[in-house]
C-alpha cells in the first residue's frame, strides 16, 4: 500500500512538472500560513484553530521537521472582516511565500479568498463543515459536506431510535450556509414523502437574541400531534439565548429534539447544559469518543494550551487531518510545490481521531464517518449513533435539481470542479 502511494506520488510529481523544485530548495524553512480571525466576532471559534495549527507545527518540529527543514507558522489576523481575508491571503501567498495556508471559518470568508488562491495557485485547507456546492482546484475541504452531516442526522431522526420524526422545523441564521443546507434538506425530506405542511422554515439574523416568538412558534408547530424535530443551522452567538429560551419554555428533548450542525463542545462551554440533555448534534468528531488517537490528541492539546479544561471539537479534528495529510503529501512528493502536493494529496490517508481512516478524494473532499451525539449534563456529547463506514463527501448535492449531473473531479479526464462533461472527456 505504502509502495503504491509512493509510486502514485512519484508519477504525479513527474506529470505535474518540477519547475519550482530547485527554487524551493534554497530556503531552509517551510512556511505555513495561518489565516484565522483572532479578533472580532469569529475570534471565539477561530482562535482555537490557530492554536491547533501551531500545536501541530510545534509537534512536527520536535520530530525533525519536514523534508529535513524546520516548519515555520506565519500567523495573520483577518479580524472577522471578509475583505481583509482576501488582503491577508494575498500577503501570505505573495509576500510571505507560504507553501500552504490553513484558514477560514465562515463560507463568506472562504468565498472572499478563493479568487486570490486561484490566481496565485496557492493551497488552502478549509477545516469547517459547510454547505458544499463548491470544489476549487486550490482548496482542500476537510470539514463535512451536507451529505456527511445534515442528511445522516435527518435520517437518524426518521429512524426508530431517533423517534420517527414526521414534522420538521428548519431553523437557521440568515446567510449562505443555512440557506443552502436547508434547500438540500427540504429537497431530501420531500423526496422521502414529507408533505409541505409538515415542514416549517424560519430564518433569523446573525446574533439574534430574542427567541421568545420563534420558540413559541416551534412549540405550537409541535403541538399538532405528530412527532416534531428542529434542525438547527443557527450560527455562533445566537445559540446560547436560543437554548436558554428552549429550556425556559420547557421544551424537552424527548418531546421536540433539536439537532444542531453548528454547536460543538466549544459552544456548549458557554451554556448551562443541565436543561439541554438529549438535544442532538451531528459531527464527524466528538471529544468524548474513546480511541487511542483521540486520547493522545486531547492530552497533547491540554499540554500545549497548559489548560486541562480546554475542549476539543470537530473543526480541530478537520484541521488535524488536513495538516497531517499535507505533511504526508509533501513527504511523498519530496517538495512543497503546490502542483506536486495536490497530486500527492489524492488518496492520502490519515487515521480519524474517532476510529477508521479518512481518505482524500479527487473532488478535494474527505471520506469520513458521521456521528450523532446527545448533549450531556457535563457539556459533552454522548454518541448515540455512528455510520458503519466512512461516507464520501459530495461537493454537489444529489438532491438538488440544479446540481444534476455536476461532477467535481480534479483528475484526468475530468479536471474540473463544476462541470457536466469532462475537460478531456472521450465521450
Amino acid at each position, binding site marked *: 500500500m505504502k509502495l503504491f502511494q509512493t509510486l502514485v506520488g512519484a508519477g504525479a510529481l513527474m506529470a505535474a512538472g518540477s519547475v519550482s523544485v530547485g527554487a524551493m530548495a534554497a530556503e531552509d524553512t517551510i512556511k505555513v500560513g495561518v489565516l484565522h480571525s483572532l479578533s472580532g466576532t469569529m475570534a471565539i471559534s477561530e482562535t482555537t484553530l490557530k492554536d491547533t495549527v501551531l500545536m501541530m507545527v510545534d509537534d512536527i518540529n520536535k520530530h525533525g521537521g519536514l523534508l529535513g527543514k524546520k516548519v515555520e507558522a506565519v500567523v495573520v489576523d483577518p479580524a472577522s472582516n471578509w475583505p481583509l481575508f482576501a488582503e491577508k491571503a494575498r500577503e501570505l501567498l505573495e509576500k510571505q511565500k507560504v507553501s500552504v495556508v490553513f484558514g477560514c471559518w465562515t463560507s463568506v470568508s472562504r468565498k472572499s479568498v478563493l479568487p486570490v488562491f486561484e490566481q496565485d495557485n496557492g493551497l488552502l485547507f478549509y477545516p469547517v463543515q459547510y454547505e458544499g456546492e463548491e470544489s476549487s482546484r486550490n482548496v482542500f475541504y476537510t470539514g463535512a459536506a451536507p451529505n456527511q452531516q445534515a442528511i445522516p442526522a435527518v435520517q437518524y431522526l426518521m429512524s426508530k431510535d431517533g423517534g420517527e420524526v414526521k414534522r420538521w422545523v428548519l431553523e437557521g441564521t440568515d446567510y449562505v450556509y443555512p440557506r443552502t443546507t436547508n434547500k438540500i434538506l427540504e429537497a431530501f425530506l420531500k423526496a422521502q414523502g414529507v408533505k409541505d405542511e409538515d415542514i416549517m422554515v424560519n430564518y433569523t439574523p446573525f446574533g439574534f437574541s430574542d427567541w421568545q416568538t420563534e420558540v413559541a412558534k416551534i412549540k405550537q408547530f409541535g403541538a399538532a400531534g405528530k412527532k416534531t424535530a428542529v434542525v438547527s443551522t443557527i450560527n455562533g452567538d445566537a445559540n446560547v439565548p436560543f437554548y436558554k429560551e428552549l429550556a425556559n419554555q420547557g421544551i424537552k428533548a424527548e418531546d421536540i429534539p433539536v439537532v444542531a450542525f453548528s454547536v460543538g463542545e466549544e459552544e456548549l*462551554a458557554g451554556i448551562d447544559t443541565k436543561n439541554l440533555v438529549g438535544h442532538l448534534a451531528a459531527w464527524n468528531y466528538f471529544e468524548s469518543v474513546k480511541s487511542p488517537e483521540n486520547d493522545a490528541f486531547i492530552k497533547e492539546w491540554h499540554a500545549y494550551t497548559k489548560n486541562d479544561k480546554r475542549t476539543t471539537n470537530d473543526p480541530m479534528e478537520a484541521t488535524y487531518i488536513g495538516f497531517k495529510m499535507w505533511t504526508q503529501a509533501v513527504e511523498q512528493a519530496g517538495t512543497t510545490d503546490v502542483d506536486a502536493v495536490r497530486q500527492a494529496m489524492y488518496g492520502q490517508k490519515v487515521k480519524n481521531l474517532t476510529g477508521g481512516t479518512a481518505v482524500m478524494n479527487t473532488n478535494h473532499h474527505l471520506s469520513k464517518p458521521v456521528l450523532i451525539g446527545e448533549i450531556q449534563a457535563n457539556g459533552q456529547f454522548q454518541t448515540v449513533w455512528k455510520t458503519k463506514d466512512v461516507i464520501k463527501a459530495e461537493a454537489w448535492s444529489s438532491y438538488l435539481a440544479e446540481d444534476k449531473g455536476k461532477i467535481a473531479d480534479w483528475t484526468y479526464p475530468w479536471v474540473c470542479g463544476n462541470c457536466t462533461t469532462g475537460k478531456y472527456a472521450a465521450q
Partner: protein
Amino acid sequence: MKFVLALMLCLFAALLPQPGWADEDAFATALRSLNADSYAEKISAAQTLAALGDPRSSVVLTALGDGMLYARADGSLLMEAGGSYIDPISGKAVPGVAASDLTALTVNNRLRGILRGLQATLDISSPDPAARLKAIQAVTALASPESAELLHKALDHESDPGVKKALQSTLAGLDLVSPDKDRRLAAVATLASSTDRGVQAQLQSLIAAEPDPQVKAAAQKVLSSIDDKLAAIGFAANLFQGLSLGSVLLLAAIGLAITFGVMGVINMAHGEMIMLGSYTAYVVQEAFRAWMPPAWIDLYLIVALPVAFLFTALVGIILERGIIRFLYGRPLETLLATFGISLILQQAVRSVFGAPNKEVANPGFMTGGFELMGGFTVTWNRLIIIVFCLVVLGALAALLRWSAFGLQMRAVAQNRPMAAAMGIRTGRIDAFTFGLGSGIAGIAGVALSQIGNVSPNLGQGYIVDSFMVVVFGGVGSLWGTLVGAMSLGVVNKFLEPYAGAMLGKILMLVFIILFIQKRPRGLFALKGRSVEN
C-alpha cells in the same frame, strides 16, 4: 474466584428469610439487563422492571432517566444519590466506590421518553396530587389504548377535583376516535372548555373524518370557540413578549439616555459598559463558586448588581476625566474617540478572559417558567427583567427629580455657565453624570447576562438598538425612553410572526426613519431654551 464468591453470596442470601424470592430474582435479572448494549434490549428491560410493580423499580427507572445509574466492572449496578452510591437491590449504601470505576448507563431520547411513560404509569397511583397530574400528562402524551384503560381506572379512584378534570379531558380526547357516536358527542362536549393546541388538532382531524352531521356540527362549534380563545391567548403572548423585548431595550438604553440624552456625548462605548457589567456578573459568580457555600450560589446575582454598578461607574468616571471632557462640543471627535475606546475595551476583555463565551448560569429563581394556558409560557427570567427594568427606571427618575445631585445635574445640562455661576462644580457633576450612566449600563449588563451570551462582542449587539430607542423616544427624556422602548418592543413582536424576524427588524428601522422625518426630536421632545442651541 469470582464464581466462588458469587456462590457464597447466593448461599448467604438464601439463608436469609426473604419474602417474594422469585420476584427478587426477576428484579435482579431485569436490572442487570438494563446494562445491555442495544437500546432495544434496555427498553424491554425497563418495561419488565415496570411490570414487576416492585416499589424499587420506580426509583431505579428515575435514576436511569437522570443518568444516575452506573455499571461496575463486574456488571452489577449502582445508583448515585446525594453523592453516595446505593445498591438498588438492597437499597443500602455501598462505601468505598471510586467514580472512575463506574461507567454511566447511556440513555437516548427514545429510551428517555419510554422511561417517562413507565414512570407515569407507576406514579398514577401516587398519593401526591401534583405527581398524579404530571403522570396523567405523560400518559396522555403516550396516547395508547392501554393508557385509556389505565386512565379510566385512575378516574374511578380520583378524589382531587383538579386531577379529575385533567383526567376527564384526557379521556375525552381519547374518546374522540371511539366508534360509538354518543361517546364522541360527549367527548366533544367535555372538551368545550379546553385551551389546548393538541385538542385543536384532534378536533380538526375529527371534523375531517366525521360521518355523523350532529357530531360534526358540535365539533365545529367547539373548535371555533377554541380557536377564538387561542387567538386571544396568542395576542396576550405577543404582548408579553413585546413588553419583554421592550424591557431589554429599555435596560440597554437607560444608561445611554443619561450619557447621550442628558450630556449630549455620542457614546459609542456604551455597549462595552454593558459588556463589562456582564463580565462582572461572571466574575462574582466564579467567586461565589470558589469561596461561598454551594447553597448561596443563587445570591451571586444580587451581589453582582452593586458590584457591577460601582465598577462600571468607576470606568465611566475615568473615561470622562481622562478623555471625553477634552472633547465636549466636538461630537465627531467624541464619536471616533469613544468608538476607539469600545474597541480597546473589547480586546482587553478578550485578552483577559479569552475569546470564547463565558457561562453565566441562571439562578434557580430565574430558570424555567409556568404555562399560563394554551401553550403560552411565561418564563421567570423575562418576567423578573421586566419588573427589574421598571424599578431601575423609577429609581433613576426619583434620583433626578428629588436629589440634590439630580438637581445639579439638570442645571448643568440646561445651562452650564449659569450653573457654574451658582457655585456648582460642573466638572465634578459631569464626571458623576457620566459615571451614573455607565453604572446603569453595568447593571443592565448583569440583567442581560441572564438571557444572552457573555462574550466580548456582547455590547455591539445592543449599541444600535440603544441609540434607536433614545432617538425615537426623544433625546433627554426618560419618559420618552420608556415609551420608546416598550412601543418598539411590542410593535416588533407583533410584526415578527407575520413578517419573520429579519423583515420585522427592517420594517422597524424603516418606520423609525419615517418617524424621525416627521418628528426630528422624537416622541417626547424637550422644550425650552436649552434645546435651541
